[in-house]
């Protein structure tokens, strides 16, 4: 699927396959996928970068500019949808450009490309392997999603068939048909929760893959009569869904830049600098890796999600974990991102933080080896360990203070992002929750 097609080859290929509709896909600032759908007759025009759309739709909910924007397809992302049946449909992931031919700075994919270029100029390529968790729930008779995983049909003679598991197997098969290298997939701890991990690839491809993955998972879940949700914490009391990000830098020749066999932990200087940079800016980029109100309901103790900003090779609970593998597989695992994040912005912010560490040769704090959750307040103070922001409002305040992370997004996106997050927070603050009613209605 990810071949290097020329324009003519792609046109021929699409016609041979009998593709009738092509969806030109891009992602908005909030991480929602948008489509401009065209017919096969218009594909030539699209490949000439001539398809336009109304730019305000990429700004999320804020309508300020009614400007025309152009879509520039990335030919290597041409993929046919395996579920399209008789009327074949395909997609192309696109970058958004202004009419004057410059990249639109409100396009998250362009933002990631910018930071990747910076890394390349420093001699590095970023590779990422995500571990994505999600829930599969039943819908009710009205088609609305519930939090239930069992049908109350009362048919006692039915053998226990794992609907969610079968759906997940179908998802893996479909993703493989679309060109994914799936590393693992399994049931997760919580009822109805699943995980699918895909193989390491360069950051841009991985971000595209994450968006594609979410789309495919939703569609296939629907084909199984289920609702897939990437909401970070749908149910209090059970594990939430995270999107752990395994990452490493490679030299331009493809050699892992994090490995050094002479170091006691076998990590290179670059790895330590990168780690230090990511830890330094973690509080600031939390707003991007955990962008919803609900994200912070997941970042609480007791459910394997990180709470404190610390790193460890042995421990499973800190913000950054160093998995055991070395050599070309040396990498660091960032554990706070959740699947509601915009993958382009999340990777741009984290990479920028890591590069900042390398540029300034930062030293990471000492690794933590005891269980971080079991530390007392004094111990934490002693070790200089601070926590992630406690809610979206705190996270946005931290983001606003950090010029490095804001630069990763660019001025346009960081302003729009902050506006959107603060609006979300304001709306949430007005709402009277069931928790408050349960607690105060009778008491006062």
């Amino acid at each position, binding site marked *: 699927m990810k071949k290097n097609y020329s324009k003519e080859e792609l046109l021929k290929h699409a016609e041979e396959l009998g593709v009738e509709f092509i969806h030109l896909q891009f992602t908005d600032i909030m991480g929602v996928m948008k489509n401009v759908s065209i017919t096969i007759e218009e594909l030539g025009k699209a490949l000439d970068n001539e398809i336009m759309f109304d730019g305000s739709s990429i700004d999320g909910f804020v309508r300020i500019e009614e400007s025309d924007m152009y879509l520039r397809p990335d030919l290597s992302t041409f993929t046919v949808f395996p579920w399209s049946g*008789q009327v074949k449909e395909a997609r192309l992931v696109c970058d958004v450009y202004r009419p004057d031919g410059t990249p639109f700075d409100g396009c998250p994919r362009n933002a990631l490309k910018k930071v990747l270029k910076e890394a390349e100029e420093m001699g590095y390529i970023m590779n990422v392997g995500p571990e994505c968790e999600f829930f599969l729930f*039943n819908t009710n*008779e009205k*088609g609305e999603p519930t939090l239930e995983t069992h049908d109350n*049909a009362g048919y006692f003679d*039915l053998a226990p*068939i794992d609907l969610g598991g079968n759906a997940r197997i179908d998802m893996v098969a479909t993703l493989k048909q679309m060109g994914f290298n799936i590393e693992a997939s399994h049931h997760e701890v919580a009822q109805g929760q699943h995980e699918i991990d895909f193989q390491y690839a360069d950051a841009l491809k991985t971000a595209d893959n994450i968006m594609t993955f979410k789309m495919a998972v939703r569609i296939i879940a629907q*084909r199984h*009569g289920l609702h897939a949700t990437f909401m970070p914490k749908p149910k209090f009391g059970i594990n939430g869904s995270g999107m752990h990000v395994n990452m490493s830098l490679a030299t331009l020749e493809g050699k892992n830049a994090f490995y050094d066999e002479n170091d006691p932990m076998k990590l290179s200087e670059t790895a330590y600098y990168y780690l230090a940079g990511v830890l330094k800016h973690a509080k600031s980029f939390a707003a991007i890796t955990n962008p919803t109100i609900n994200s912070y309901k997941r970042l609480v103790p007791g459910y394997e999600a990180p709470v404190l900003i610390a790193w460890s090779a042995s421990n499973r609970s800190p913000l950054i974990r160093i998995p055991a593998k070395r050599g070309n597989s040396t990498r660091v695992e960032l554990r706070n991102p959740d699947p509601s994040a915009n993958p382009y912005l999340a990777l741009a912010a984290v990479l920028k933080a890591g590069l900042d560490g390398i540029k300034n040769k930062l030293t990471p704090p000492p690794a933590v080896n005891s269980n971080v959750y079991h530390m007392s307040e004094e111990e934490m103070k002693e070790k200089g360990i601070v926590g992630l922001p406690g809610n979206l409002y705190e996270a946005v305040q931290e983001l606003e203070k950090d010029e490095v992370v804001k630069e990763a997004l660019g001025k346009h996106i960081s302003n729009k992002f902050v506006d959107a997050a603060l609006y979300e927070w304001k709306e949430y603050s007005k709402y009277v929750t069931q928790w408050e009613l349960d607690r105060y209605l009778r008491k006062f």
Partner: protein
Amino acid sequence: MDNYRIVVADSGSTSRKQICNILAQKGYKIYEATDGSGVLRIARKILPHLVLIDVNIWGINAYELGRIIEGDGISTVVFITGNPDKSFYEILGNMSIFAYITKPVNAIHLHQIIEFALANLKKITMLEAKVKKLEKTLSARKKVDKAKGILMKKMNLSEEEAYQYLRKKSMDECTTIEKIAENII
């Protein structure tokens, strides 16, 4: 009657109950669904022989449901409609069985259509299995021919010698001639 499993998918409880009662009395094993997603869940759970879907079912479009259920090989679909028009017939043309149930439901007609559908289903399943077997045999034979051609060219053998080579190799390695042919190609 033989324990045929049938799912009745209709959002209208009166008509759904009516159909269920008629069919249950005839001895079929009946399961109910009230909306699109519910149909998909129960059909994937029990793999019924037939799924009857009302064209106005809530949730996922009834014809899309039909495509998913037949496309993924889950079951065979028979639509229930109050208004069979030209576009309906066009859609039917793409389904496994060209039969449908009309509303208001007539018990005798309903029974006839179900029996008709089940009988045809049996025939179609048998034919499909036969075709699959033939396709497999043909594809294997093509591969063997191709491999023979390669051997004849590369090793300067006659057709008979090439075939014997393949046959011996398959016996030595305890695998099919087709597999050996694939490796050679």
